[in-house]
C-alpha cells in the first residue's frame, strides 16, 4: 500500500516536468502541426548526414590536429587545447562517441513513431549541441554553409516559439542574406564561373552573367514570394528554388541540397499555408535572431579591405561561392643550426578559400611546436576570380604575427595597399 502514493507522486512529478518542458520549448506546436513534424524528420535526416561526416573528421582529433594543424576559428585560436577525441587508427573514442549519437538518432526515430514529441525533442538537443560545439568551437576547418543552415533550422525548431513562421522566414532570410556576398564581379559578371576550366554546369560561357544575375534577383527579391498568399507566385518561387538546389548539386554534391531541399519542400510545398506574422512577446527571440543574422552577415563587409581578397570575417556570415580562389603560400624557415627550409603550399581549387589566416595558423603552430626556428619569412599570393596573383602578405617573420578576428590585420594587404602583382593564374577547377 505504501508504494501506491509514491508511484502517484512520481507520475505526478513526471507529468509536471513534461508540461513545464513542453511549455518552455513550445513543443505543443510540434505536436499540433504536421508541417513541423515533417521538418523535425528532415532535421533528423540532416543530422544523420552531418554526424556521419563528423565521425571521421580528422581536425576534431588530437592526432589529426598534431599532424596538419587545421585552423581553429579566429575567435578561439586555442581550440586544440580542448580537443579530446582520438580518431582511427590511433584510438576509438571518436567513432565510439558518434555511434552513441547514432543510437540517440535512432531512439528519436522510435519516439517519433510513438508520437512522444517531448522526449524526441529533448533527445534532439544532444546532436544539436554536439554539432554546434564541433563546428563553431572545436574546429574552424570543418564547417560549410550547410552546417549554418542546419544550426538555424534545428535551433528554431527546438528553442523558439512560433516555430513554423520563423522556420519559413529563416529560410527566406538566408536566401536574402546570401546575396550580400554575391554583389561583386564574381557573380555580376560571372567571373567566378568563367574562370573555371569547366565553366558553369550545363551553360555556355556567354550566358553565365545572365544566369548568375537571375540567381541574385531570385534570392534577393524572388525568395520573398515563397511567403506569398497569391498561389501562382508562391508556386513559381518554390519551383525555382527546388530546381536551383537540384542544379547546384552538380557542383556542391549531395550535402547542401540534402540539408535545404527537404525543408524547403515541406515548408513551402503542398503543405504550404500562409502563416500570420507574430508580433507578440514570445516572438521577440525570433526577431532578435533574424537581426543578429543580419549583423553577422555584415561582419566581413564592415572590416576595412576587400573580404574576397583578405577573407577577414568571411566565415561569420554566409560565404557560399563568394569568390573563386587560387593561392601560393611560401615560407622560408631558418633554424638555430642555420638550416634553411622552404615550405610551399599552393591551391588551385576554386572552393578552397585561400584564407591567409588558415595558412598563417599552420605556420604559427609550427613556430610554437619547434623551438629551434629562429625566423620564418612568409609570402602569400592570392588570385580572385581569375584576376592576377597579388602578394597580399610579405612579412619577415610569420611567428611574430597575431591575428585579430573582427578587425583588419595590417599585415594583410587589400587593393588599397596596391599589393604587388606576382603573376596570372590559369583557368582552375572546382574540386
Amino acid at each position, binding site marked *: 500500500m505504501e508504494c501506491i502514493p509514491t508511484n502517484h507522486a512520481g507520475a505526478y512529478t513526471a507529468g509536471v516536468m513534461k508540461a513545464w518542458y513542453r511549455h518552455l520549448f513550445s513543443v505543443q506546436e510540434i505536436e499540433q502541426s504536421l508541417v513541423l513534424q515533417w521538418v523535425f524528420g528532415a532535421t533528423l535526416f540532416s543530422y544523420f548526414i552531418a554526424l556521419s561526416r563528423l565521425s571521421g573528421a580528422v581536425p576534431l582529433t588530437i592526432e589529426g590536429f598534431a599532424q596538419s594543424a587545421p585552423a581553429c576559428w579566429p575567435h578561439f585560436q586555442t581550440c586544440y587545447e580542448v580537443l579530446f577525441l582520438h580518431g582511427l587508427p590511433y584510438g576509438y573514442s571518436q567513432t565510439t562517441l558518434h555511434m552513441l549519437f547514432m543510437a540517440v538518432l535512432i531512439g528519436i526515430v522510435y519516439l517519433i513513431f510513438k508520437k512522444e514529441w517531448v522526449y524526441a525533442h529533448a533527445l534532439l538537443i544532444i546532436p544539436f549541441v554536439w554539432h554546434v560545439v564541433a563546428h563553431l568551437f572545436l574546429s574552424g576547418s570543418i564547417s560549410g554553409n550547410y552546417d549554418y543552415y542546419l544550426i538555424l533550422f534545428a535551433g528554431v525548431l527546438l528553442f523558439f516559439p512560433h516555430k513554423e513562421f520563423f522556420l519559413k522566414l529563416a529560410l527566406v532570410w538566408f536566401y536574402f542574406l546570401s546575396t550580400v556576398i554575391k*554583389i561583386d564581379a564574381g557573380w*555580376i559578371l560571372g*567571373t567566378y564561373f568563367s574562370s573555371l576550366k569547366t565553366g558553369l554546369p550545363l551553360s555556355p560561357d556567354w550566358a553565365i552573367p545572365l544566369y548568375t544575375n537571375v540567381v541574385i534577383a531570385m534570392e534577393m527579391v524572388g525568395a520573398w514570394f515563397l511567403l506569398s498568399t497569391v498561389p501562382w507566385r508562391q508556386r513559381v518561387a518554390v519551383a525555382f528554388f527546388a530546381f536551383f538546389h537540384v542544379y547546384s548539386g552538380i557542383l556542391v554534391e549531395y550535402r547542401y541540397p540534402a540539408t535545404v531541399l527537404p525543408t524547403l519542400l515541406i515548408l513551402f510545398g503542398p503543405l504550404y499555408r500562409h502563416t500570420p*506574422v507574430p508580433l507578440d512577446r514570445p516572438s521577440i527571440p525570433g526577431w532578435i535572431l533574424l537581426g543578429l543574422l543580419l549583423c553577422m552577415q555584415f561582419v566581413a563587409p564592415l572590416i576595412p579591405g576587400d573580404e574576397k581578397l583578405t577573407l577577414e570575417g568571411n566565415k561569420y556570415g554566409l560565404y557560399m561561392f563568394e569568390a573563386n580562389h587560387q593561392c601560393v603560400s611560401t615560407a622560408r624557415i631558418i633554424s638555430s643550426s642555420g638550416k634553411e627550409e622552404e615550405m610551399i*603550399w599552393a591551391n588551385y*581549387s576554386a572552393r578552397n578559400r585561400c584564407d591567409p589566416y588558415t595558412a598563417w595558423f599552420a605556420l604559427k603552430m609550427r613556430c610554437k611546436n619547434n623551438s629551434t626556428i629562429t625566423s620564418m619569412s612568409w609570402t602569400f599570393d592570392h*588570385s580572385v576570380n581569375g*584576376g592576377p596573383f597579388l602578394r597580399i602578405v610579405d612579412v619577415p617573420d610569420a611567428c611574430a604575427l597575431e591575428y585579430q578576428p573582427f578587425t583588419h590585420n595590417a599585415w594583410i594587404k587589400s587593393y588599397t595597399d596596391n599589393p604587388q602583382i606576382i603573376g596570372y*593564374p*590559369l583557368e582552375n577547377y572546382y574540386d
Partner: protein
Amino acid sequence: MTNEGVALISTSPLQEGNSPVQLTAVQEFLLPYLPYLESAWWMVFFCTLLYLSFEYVVKPLWHRWSVSHH
C-alpha cells in the same frame, strides 16, 4: 595541397607576358558598368529590406495599435 596544384600554378602563371583569365564578350561589355551594377544591386537589397520591414513589422504593429485605440 596537392602536387598537381603546385605544378599547375608554378609552371605557368608567374611567367612574364601572361594575362588574367580571358573574359567573354558579354563580360567585356558589362565590365565598365560594374560599379553601377553593384550600386544598383545594393539599392535593390536595401529597398527590399526597407519594404519588408514595413510590410512585416511596421504595418502589423500600426494595425494592432490603431485597433486597440479605436
